[in-house]
């Protein structure tokens, strides 16, 4: 409609400078050119609006693949909408995991908000990938902000080509998958490009060896001990320390045997085996090559707790023990782990007996070393022995970490014992922090008892502890404990307790809705 654009030009210039164009059949005007322009424009504008034609050439978005998982029930969908809007937002990972565990998926209308959450919170991404369904991946492909979802889940993402052309994250994902099915192929793939990779990438790729680690990896890892990248070297030595039958393990065992030796003493006419400890006197290049730095973490930095730094010699001892195959000790002492853990420990020489570093501290270092070794080597026998042995470890976190090594059915009981042991000590929170949820059964009992005790004490310091305790418990404690804690909350009325029971109830209802 050329008439319209002529009218627009005339209006832009002004009718004072350019007379309005003629329009056949225009309404009669009063002679004023401006008025005539407006009247004619009105006719044309209405023609334009009423005569609007549909756009053509639009290509519909390619349809999403058929969904195979059913969507969550309506009540659960409604609750997810509330969670995404900010109510009890911390339970989101649990919602997603529970939905995925029941083979359900997020309703498609909530996907945009959910994917947006994963954009700012990396930790959420795997859970999102499991629960978002095929529609989620399809949607993520349409928005570059959500591209993280593609390849972050169980989605295969791509084949060998990814290894040649992908980003670092994609390549790590590819390698991890390959390690799961064919560790040797993954090792060969990495070996092919190893020399060309920059150090941070080498470290990231080497970390995937954690999956499917076996004696076959030993040569590769030994070579990596000579790597130029410090992180790569450290990682290689940490991985080697998990391989009990390796040359690395034998080297460490030699060092460790120099530090620890049995001695039979006669105390009150009874023969007793003692462990005499002599921490390493020096630090050499070979020790550094095997992953024990001159200043191991915590050796001289101000201690995180009372007691301060442990000193370099004790720290070397801990590191060496942590990297020594645990079979070394069962061979040396000829006893099961349970008995070894109970043996008395003494410094070997009087010179190693300064005032503050007595036999207790020495025993602590030995036990911490063993605890770290049991964690690395996933040794159930030693983990059980250390947890049950009641060893006075001044780092109860090391014991808490061991819980993951135990078979699932033993964990709750052992954790409960640990909590009862730490009850009333400042370490309690640090121990709890390391016990993954869900806390059920005996463990839940112990935690509820701890909360009860913290609530009974009423000093300011304890109120603070109670708040922290509740905050730790709210996502992990089994929701069935809610009624008992509510009774407690009714008695004490602490805000932290009320919040805790509220969250537990919310989670209980949430899990009920998600259970078909």
């Amino acid at each position, binding site marked *: 409609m050329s008439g319209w654009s002529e*009218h*627009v030009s*005339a*209006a*832009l210039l*002004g*009718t*004072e*400078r350019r007379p309005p164009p003629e329009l056949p059949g225009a309404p009669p005007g009063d002679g*004023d050119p401006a*008025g005539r322009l*407006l*009247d004619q*424009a*009105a006719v*044309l*504008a*209405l023609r*334009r*609006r*009423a005569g*609007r034609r*549909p*756009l*053509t*050439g*639009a*290509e*519909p*978005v*390619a349809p*999403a693949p058929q969904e195979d998982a*059913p*969507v*969550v*029930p*309506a*009540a*659960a*969908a*409604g609750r*997810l909408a*509330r969670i995404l*809007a*900010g*109510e*009890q937002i911390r339970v989101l990972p649990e919602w997603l995991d529970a939905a995925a565990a029941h083979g359900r998926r997020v*309703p*498609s*209308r909530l*996907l945009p908000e959910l994917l947006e959450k994963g954009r700012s919170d990396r930790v959420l991404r795997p859970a999102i990938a499991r629960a978002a369904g095929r*529609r989620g991946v*399809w*949607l993520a492909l349409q*928005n570059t902000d959500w591209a993280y979802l593609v390849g972050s889940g169980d989605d295969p993402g791509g084949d060998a080509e990814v290894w040649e052309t992908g980003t670092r994250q994609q390549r790590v994902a590819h390698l991890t998958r390959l390690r799961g099915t064919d560790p040797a192929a993954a090792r060969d793939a990495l070996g092919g490009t190893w020399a060309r990779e920059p150090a941070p990438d080498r470290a990231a790729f080497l970390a995937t060896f954690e999956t499917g680690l076996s004696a076959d990896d030993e040569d590769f890892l030994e070579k990596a001990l000579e790597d130029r990248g410090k992180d790569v070297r450290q990682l290689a030595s940490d991985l080697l320390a998990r391989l009990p039958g390796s040359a690395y393990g034998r080297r460490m065992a030699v060092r460790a045997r120099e530090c620890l030796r049995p001695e039979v003493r006669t105390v009150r006419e009874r023969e007793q085996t003692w462990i005499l400890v002599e921490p390493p006197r020096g630090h050499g290049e070979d020790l550094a090559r095997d992953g024990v730095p001159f200043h191991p973490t915590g050796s001289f930095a101000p201690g995180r707790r009372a007691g301060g730094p442990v000193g370099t010699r004790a720290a070397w001892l801990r590191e060496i023990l942590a990297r020594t195959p645990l079979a070394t000790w069962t061979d040396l002492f000829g006893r099961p782990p349970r008995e070894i853990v109970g043996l008395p420990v003494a410094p070997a020489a009087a010179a190693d007996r300064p005032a503050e570093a007595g036999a207790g501290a020495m025993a602590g270092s030995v036990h911490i070393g063993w605890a770290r070794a049991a964690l690395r080597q996933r040794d159930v026998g030693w983990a059980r022995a250390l947890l049950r042995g009641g060893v006075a470890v001044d780092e109860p976190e090391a014991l808490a970490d061991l819980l993951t090594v135990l078979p699932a059915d033993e964990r709750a009981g052992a954790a409960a014992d640990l909590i009862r042991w730490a009850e009333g000590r400042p370490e309690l929170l640090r121990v709890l922090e390391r016990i993954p949820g869900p806390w059920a059964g005996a463990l839940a009992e112990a935690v509820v008892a701890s909360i009860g005790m913290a609530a009974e004490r009423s000093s300011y310091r304890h109120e603070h502890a109670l708040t922290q305790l509740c905050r730790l418990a709210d996502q992990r404690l089994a929701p069935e404990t809610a009624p008992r804690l509510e009774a407690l909350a009714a008695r004490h009325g602490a805000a932290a307790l*009320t919040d805790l*029971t*509220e969250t537990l*109830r*919310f989670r209980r209802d949430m899990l009920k809705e998600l259970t078909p």
Partner: protein
Amino acid sequence: MLAVAPDAAAAKAAAGVARSAGWSGTGCDTAAVWGECAGGGKSAYRAAADLDEPAYRCSCPSRKFPCKHVLGLLLLWSEGAVEGGPRPDWVAEWIGQRRARAEKARERRRAAAAKTRDPRTAERREQRVDGGIADLDQWLRDQVAHGLAQADKAPYRLWDEAARRLVDAQAGALAGQVKGLAAIPRQEGWPDRLLEEYALLRLLVRAYQRRAGLPPGLRETVRSRIGFTVQQEEVLRDGERVRDSWHVIGSRDVVQDQLTTRRVWLRGRESGRPALVLSFAAPGRHLDASLVVGTRVEAELAFYPGAQPLRALVADRLATEAGGAPEGLTVGAFLDEYAAALGRDPWLDRWPALLGGVRLARNGGPRVVDAHGDALPLLSAEPWRLLAVSGGAPVTFAGEWSPRGLLPLAAWAGGGTAGEKGKRAEGDDGDEGVVIL
């Protein structure tokens, strides 16, 4: 239930209150629910809700409205945890007062409507409006005489002052329109749009000046566009009544000048007629939430007078049912319908679109495309929710059409053709029914 909460924090607090053991003396009957909640103070807070209106009351000092106690009480009630019982005195008294006040207000309005207005007041207003209209006509002609080329550099004052003169002339609706024009020169393609708007204003001016010769419907349309309002009582008494099962197809809140306007779009299932129900609220107050998108309301509507009746009041509400997807039009049929409506009311700026079996396209900007390949542009930068819900498949789509494009309101997934509906085999789950966009 938590949709009535003033904010998320209140909703959260309400969930806590609902759970607390502090409730006593709770009860409900068909019109009210009440209870006493032990709060921070010495005596318990008395919370009650009038379910008819709805209205809320609580003796706590919270400035939030409704407060967490009332919300908590409603949550308990919605969970079925409140038993029926006789009203205590304080509730009966409050409800009684409310009913009496409402009756009085109705009485007053009836009286006001019945009272013939002072003819001199009306005459004075007509004169003022006449003056304002003549003034606007001159202003419009001045704009095109001097040329619009500099409009994108003009200060807001240019339009604000013209609008202020119209306010003084008691042509409120017109003033609002003129004020809104200031935003146009800040947008792409402004010369066309600005000339369109000026031309249509001029058309309104001319129509008003010749109002005596217009057919009655069109005259009402012109008067309402200028700012002459029609009392609700008049609409209920004289307005055209249409009884139908009305699909609630969309709702949109717009905040302007300290006033929130809620536009709820309806579509009659039998008559196919569109209707617009407006409600207004000051900031922080509650808008009418009685029409829920996705439901179908069996009701008699009373339409405001006009050449193309659109705005309506719910005169008589009979029942509310779960909606189901309404029948949508093709893009071509919708544009024909819009053109016909524009023929009756040339100033029609918004028209509800209900399209069936449309898919989303993203090449060259977001669009909806029907089965024939006809497309309309969407006024939404990235329609992620529509994309997520449809999964690229055809949906029934509701939007607010303006000459610039479609503003998405709601969608019904899987509600395309009959074949699509048959394929859907999902039961009671969270992925069904209407989705608000």
